[in-house]
């Protein structure tokens, strides 16, 4: 018999056959009531009819078959025994199914009979559950009040797959991918449970995840991702209430990793919490990492919607940054101790700790970062106002506004930047008429840009104005008595005169004085940030002022060196290379050496800081200030060191060549070498000595 390809027609045929099977089985039961084979066969026939009928939405048939099937469930479970009467009633019920199959519904004239038959069957088997409609909508769309779809929020999902996950054909990565489809995710995987190979059950799953999901999906949608995970897997979904920065401890308590009383006890230790907890094995490093990620994410979310309450949060962030700073210092001490003890296990743990500290440091710095947009934005309006006031036409372009910078740095850059922009508009850009006469468009161009370069941020202010006439600057400087009339200056040095105190004392800023107004103040402010400011200009074409600013003030990674027994730290952001002093080719004058094919000035730090003089074979640290290299001669190089930089007290603030101090692991201080300043001194000194 050729079977039809239409499933509905096939179902009709199949169901007729199954009802035939059901009849034979019932008759078999009548002869042999204890025959389980007949019983099972009857049950399966009913079950299959019901299952297929549901697919064709034959609801009346499904409902009746379901009740009928339940009777057989009871019989199979031994809750009742097969009797003659039961078989009779079953045969009657089977005939009703045949009717239902052919007509789709119970004809009105047999409806009462059909119900009576079923009720009597149900009565014959005790403990049959009350006839329920087949549960075709097991997952009603109940909307939970907390389950707000359409509102973006942060969910913390903890997913601990059971060890059988891989074997069960579940791929956790596809679950993560599904979560990604719902919003933006931050995934922290836990690999610490993976044993060494010799203990590994190869196909067991040892991995676990914390996933932070920012989504507007409903909770139900998120739960649906995990609908098929097996019963031994653990999935918890919690809403994390953003809007407020939370301390590490709170997050850990919230996650059930730590009790409130334990937290209070550990907090009493005055040592960074994450460290204490990890060291004591109270919570794992991964847990701390995950909690820190959560903290960071919330901080980021918060910074996205900058509100007027930012001052409160900033202070809290400052607290965190200083806490992490202490963390960093302590880490350095532990490193030293571990090395001294030569304890392998300790060294391993310290390595892990170091990784955490690095992350905590990046995190805390990250939380402290704000986009340069906040610095640049006010200039849109300021430029317009200044242009009108000074009768200029200016188009302002802002580049790289998403570049992030320490908030404290941003705050301290506002004034210097204002000075520079004001100068550009006032003295750089010409009046519209003058521009036309010079063959330029009426409208002057002013470009503020920011971009990252290693651990520095470059901020440039560029105009296409008249540029700076260095002859005029020179004349001005001579007139001010700043340089002798016969001084031989490079173009760069000439332009640098603009930043000298005194140069700006010109009564009124003119084309000649160029950038006179406040440029010395600009340099001082920028240097206070351990940054540098330089100027380049081409007459008639324009002027560019470049600020080089360290990303953050809080923590500096530096190279620790000894100079005549004193400790100095050189910011890694500036270091190009360390050169073995015995191999370096020094010029006979002592002021230069050959470095990668070019001649680079040397600065003996011992001599500079007046500790004495260096040996000829002392190591050289090559640093770069802008495009210029300088070799700093030190006595010994000790290694990398991360630290919080402390400001020098007011008394020592103006010591040349030092930009701050740090405390070393053993509690002794080390001075931060002011590379930008030293570079200028070195080039000046060496020019003199030649």
């Amino acid at each position: 018999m050729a079977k039809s390809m239409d499933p509905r027609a096939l179902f009709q045929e199949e169901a007729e056959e199954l009802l035939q099977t059901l009849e034979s089985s019932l008759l078999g039961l009548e002869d042999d009531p204890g025959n389980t084979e007949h019983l099972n066969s009857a049950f399966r026939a009913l079950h299959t009819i019901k299952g297929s009928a549901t697919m064709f939405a034959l609801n009346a048939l499904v409902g009746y078959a379901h009740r009928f099937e339940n009777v057989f469930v009871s019989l199979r479970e031994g809750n009742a025994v097969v009797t003659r009467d039961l078989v009779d009633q079953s045969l009657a019920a089977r005939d009703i199914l045949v009717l239902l199959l052919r007509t789709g519904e119970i004809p009105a004239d047999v409806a009462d009979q059909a119900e009576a038959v079923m009720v009597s069957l149900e009565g014959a088997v005790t403990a049959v559950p009350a006839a329920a409609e087949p549960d075709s909508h097991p997952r009603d769309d109940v909307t939970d009040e907390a389950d707000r779809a359409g509102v973006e929020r942060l969910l913390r999902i903890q997913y601990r797959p059971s060890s059988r996950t891989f074997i069960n054909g579940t791929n956790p990565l596809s679950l993560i991918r599904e979560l990604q489809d719902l919003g933006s995710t931050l995934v922290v995987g836990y690999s610490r449970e993976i044993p060494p190979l010799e203990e590994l059950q190869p196909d067991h799953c040892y991995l676990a995840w914390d996933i932070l999901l920012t989504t507007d999906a409903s909770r139900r949608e998120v739960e649906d991702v995990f609908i098929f995970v097996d019963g031994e897997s653990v999935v918890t979904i919690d809403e994390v209430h953003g809007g407020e920065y939370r301390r590490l401890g709170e997050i850990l308590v919230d996650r059930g990793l730590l009790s409130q009383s334990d937290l209070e006890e550990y907090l009493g230790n005055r040592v960074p919490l994450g460290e204490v907890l990890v060291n004591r094995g109270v919570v794992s490093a991964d847990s701390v990492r995950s909690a820190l990620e959560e903290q960071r994410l919330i901080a980021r979310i918060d910074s996205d919607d900058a509100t007027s309450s930012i001052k409160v949060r900033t202070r809290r962030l400052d607290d965190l940054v200083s806490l992490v700073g202490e963390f960093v210092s302590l880490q350095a001490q532990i490193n030293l101790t571990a090395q001294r003890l030569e304890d392998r296990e300790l060294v391993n743990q310290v390595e892990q700790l170091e990784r955490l500290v690095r992350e905590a440091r990046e995190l805390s710095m990250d939380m402290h970062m704000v986009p340069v947009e906040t610095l640049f934005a006010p200039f849109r309006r300021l430029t317009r106002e200044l242009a009108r006031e000074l009768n200029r036409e200016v188009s302002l372009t802002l580049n790289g506004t998403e570049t992030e910078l320490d908030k404290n740095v941003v705050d301290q850059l506002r004034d210097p930047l204002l000075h520079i922009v004001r100068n550009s508009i006032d003295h750089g850009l010409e009046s519209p008429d003058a521009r036309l006469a010079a063959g330029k468009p009426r409208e002057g161009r002013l470009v503020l840009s920011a971009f990252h370069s290693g651990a520095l941020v470059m901020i440039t202010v560029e105009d296409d104005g008249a540029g700076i006439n260095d002859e005029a600057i020179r004349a001005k400087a001579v007139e001010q008595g700043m340089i002798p009339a016969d001084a031989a200056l490079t173009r760069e040095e000439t332009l640098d005169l603009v930043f000298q105190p005194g140069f700006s004392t010109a009564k009124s800023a003119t084309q000649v004085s160029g950038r006179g107004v406040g440029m010395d103040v600009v340099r001082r402010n920028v240097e206070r940030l351990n940054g540098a400011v330089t100027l380049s200009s081409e007459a008639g074409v324009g002027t560019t002022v470049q600020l080089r600013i360290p990303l953050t003030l809080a923590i500096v990674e530096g190279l620790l060196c000894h100079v005549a027994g004193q400790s100095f730290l050189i910011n890694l952001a500036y270091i190009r290379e360390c050169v073995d002093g015995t191999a370096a080719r020094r010029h006979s004058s002592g002021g230069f050496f050959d470095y990668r094919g070019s001649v680079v000035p040397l600065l003996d730090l011992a001599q500079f800081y007046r500790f004495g003089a260096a040996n000829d074979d002392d190591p050289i640290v090559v640093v770069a200030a802008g495009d210029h290299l300088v070799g700093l001669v030190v006595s010994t190089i000790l290694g990398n060191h991360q630290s919080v930089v402390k400001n020098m007290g007011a008394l020592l603030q103006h010591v040349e060549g030092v930009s701050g101090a740090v405390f070393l692991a053993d509690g002794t201080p080390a001075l931060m070498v002011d590379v930008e300043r030293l570079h200028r001194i070195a080039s000046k000194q060496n020019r003199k000595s030649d």
Partner: protein
Amino acid sequence: MFLCDLQQEGDSVVLELSGDLTVETVNDFVGAVLPVLESPLIEVRVAAIAGFDLCGLQSLYALAESRRRSNGALVFTGEEALRRFAAMARFAGLDELSAASTNG
């Protein structure tokens, strides 16, 4: 299909993996590596690995963990495959394999 070709080169052992390192084949991998776990240097060449899953990745972490505990050197080579391992690890929020391994 998975093959683990094992070659002794002096004190060190080179494991040349080819085929798919997945939950289906991970037993073969572990079986092949266990006997040579004590070698001073294990070099795992994963260049020819065509496919892998999280379970396969997990076994490589386990190998790295073993070597870390015994202070034995472990080197993974095979740029393309390692790049893919690293991409998967990043996706899963795990440390990259290179960080988990000890380079001797």
